[in-house]
């Protein structure tokens, strides 16, 4: 009311219309618009990508995403490597949660060579543990990171510190800090070290404490609410139209979770319910992710309680240097921290795959959806919207 009285809500009819769509050309020489580039050399974009913005005042009228700055040609490289050589290559596809790539490529090769039924119980539980730990470390960076886009850097500092602790546990389990190569065809590489569960429990207690603090810092913060509420709304109708998955879909009330829809490993033995919210804005998405943080901590506790103490961790496989997989194709998916993450794998009977194609959630979120959500947004909100869609450029261009 007071905004209207003081004239802070501009009369939209007096301004040139915001009707620009993909493909429309905006006449820059009319001096009504300005073109600015956000990225790649800009701390406000997620990773190494860029967004080309046509702005009118502070309002974006048209946006174009430019990707390819991180293109390494993974799919081509894997085609000329042995199946097992593909592992170290493929896990570098997405740096935010590398374990998901390990699981996908291991399961694809197992399914096509008929070993998927032979994976031992213990290995399945350990795979689940490493996947959930990967999700946890991603969320510890991602949830406060949403506050970080609005300059609430304190939560990021706490979150990244706790993420380091989880990476320490990864180091104990797998020997590596970021790129683990823990899940291999036929099983996993190692058992839990002694005392792992106790140390993990210590860290989880710290994270519990952090979860409560971040709630007070972000979700009870009036300025954060003011920035995030009503921003970049995704409606349930848009979900199928744009192929929206994961927390972005759950933020607007559409329950899409591969762990429930297409259960893999032992997820049907765990007791959990994917959180949802109805608003579909940046605040709702962050809220869903925050609840998922609680849930992931709970899932790790459940997994550690339910998993057997000992057991086979790897089924005997053929010599990997001469391993040939019969002709076939498959698609395997899992729920990563960002949503459905899948891999299409084609073999032709030789010792190298014919085609590997990764389907990352950012592929649709960061290009088709982002370009449409940015129209009408404020320039200052672009970074917040990109992070709220969990944009991860390496999985777009591979």
């Amino acid at each position, binding site marked *: 009311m*007071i905004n209207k009285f*003081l004239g802070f809500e501009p009369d939209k009819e007096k301004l040139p219309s915001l009707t620009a769509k993909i493909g429309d050309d905006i006449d820059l020489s009319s001096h009504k618009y*300005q073109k600015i580039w956000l990225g790649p050399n800009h701390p406000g974009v997620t990773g190494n990508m860029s967004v080309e913005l046509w702005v009118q005042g502070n309002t974006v009228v048209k946006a174009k995403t430019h990707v390819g700055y991180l293109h390494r040609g993974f799919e081509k490289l894997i085609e000329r490597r042995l199946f097992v050589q593909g592992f170290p290559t493929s896990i570098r596809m997405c740096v935010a949660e590398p374990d998901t790539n390990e699981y996908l490529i291991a399961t694809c090769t197992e399914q096509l060579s008929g070993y998927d039924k032979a994976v031992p119980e213990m290995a399945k539980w350990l795979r689940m543990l490493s996947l959930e730990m990967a999700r946890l470390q991603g969320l510890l960076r991602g949830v406060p990171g949403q*506050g970080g886009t*609005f*300059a609430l850097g*304190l939560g990021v500092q706490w979150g990244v510190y706790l993420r380091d602790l989880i990476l320490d546990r990864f180091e104990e389990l797998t020997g590596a800090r970021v790129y683990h190569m823990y899940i291999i065809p036929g099983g996993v590489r190692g058992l839990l070290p002694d005392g792992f569960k106790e140390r993990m429990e210590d860290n989880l207690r710290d994270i519990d404490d952090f979860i409560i603090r971040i709630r007070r810092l972000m979700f009870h913060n009036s*300025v954060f609410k003011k*920035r995030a509420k009503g921003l970049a709304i995704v409606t349930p109708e848009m979900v199928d139209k744009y192929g929206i998955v994961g927390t972005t879909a759950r933020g607007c009330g559409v329950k899409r979770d591969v762990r429930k829809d297409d259960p893999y490993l032992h997820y049907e033995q765990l007791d959990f319910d994917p959180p949802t919210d109805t608003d579909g804005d940046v605040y709702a998405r962050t809220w869903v992710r925050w609840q998922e943080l609680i849930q992931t901590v709970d899932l790790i506790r459940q997994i550690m309680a339910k998993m057997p103490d000992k057991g086979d961790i790897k089924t005997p496989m053929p010599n990997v240097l001469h391993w040939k997989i019969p002709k076939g194709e498959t698609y395997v998916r899992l729920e990563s921290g960002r949503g459905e993450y899948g891999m299409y794998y084609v073999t032709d009977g030789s010792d190298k795959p014919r085609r590997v194609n990764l389907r990352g959630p950012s592929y649709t979120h960061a290009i088709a959806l982002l370009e449409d959500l940015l129209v009408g947004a404020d320039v200052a909100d672009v970074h917040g919207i990109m992070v709220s869609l969990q944009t991860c450029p390496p999985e777009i261009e591979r």
Partner: protein
Amino acid sequence: MTIYAKLGYTLLGLFIVLNWGFLMGATFRKIGARLAGRYGIPFYQPWLNLLKNISIRTTITHGIMYYIGPVFRLTGGVGLFLFMPMVFTGSPNGLWTNFSFEGDLILILYFQVFGMLGMALGAGQGGHPYSAMGIARGLAQHAAVELPLTLAFLSIAIQFDTFSVYKIVEAQQGGFENWILFTNPFAAATIILAMLGAMGHSPFNLVKAPNEILIGPATEFEGTYLGFMQSAGSILHVMEAVLFMNLVFGGANSWIELIVKTFLIYFWSVFVGMVFPRFKIEQSVTWFFKVPLLLGFLAIIIYSL
């Protein structure tokens, strides 16, 4: 006291203010770091940064106004210092009253905007779209801050019937119950709220937000110019704190008191900045035009009746 002695004391005061500004900046970055659980920068880092900036070899130019930007900003800071009585010693020609005179409150109001306008010229010639956007945001927000601040200043001027900062400080002597904080609470509340915007910390720092638009007006500045600007920023921060100390918190009777009071005043804006994200520009403008503006009107009305 001869004019030369006065000049000497003024320059000495400027030196103290510059170093105190550097130290205060480093201290608050350390406080922020400790809050996050970090060790933080060494306390002498700002001096090293200044030296480093001076030692940069490359100089680029975008035209004459580009040089004038940092100079204007420094002039704004130094001008604010020149006409501000720093320490109250009981005489208008005291050692640390600098060149304050009747009506310096108006000049100080002008000098607050001066640096920003200079930056607008310099950054505009820089030609970078981020600079232009940053400066447009900065000027919009500055106008929004100035309005309640000016109303509060006017209210204080009406209260004591003077535009001299020295006389306002003089009127507040003799115990904290004489501070404007208690004698004119509406004006004081307006100033305390508007101060957040004037200090340029979160949530009112979209002007130089690295996430949203790189670093705003300073995008194109490097080397010595950046060193100039950072020194000017340090001086400005201290002088804003001194201004609010003089106007609301009863001035200072010694350098120690000045340092303690400016530290606490500066801490208020940093404290708010640590736990709040930043506003968008239209949100911050609206914010200043709501409560602070109403309080400012009340302060005027009460003392005009």
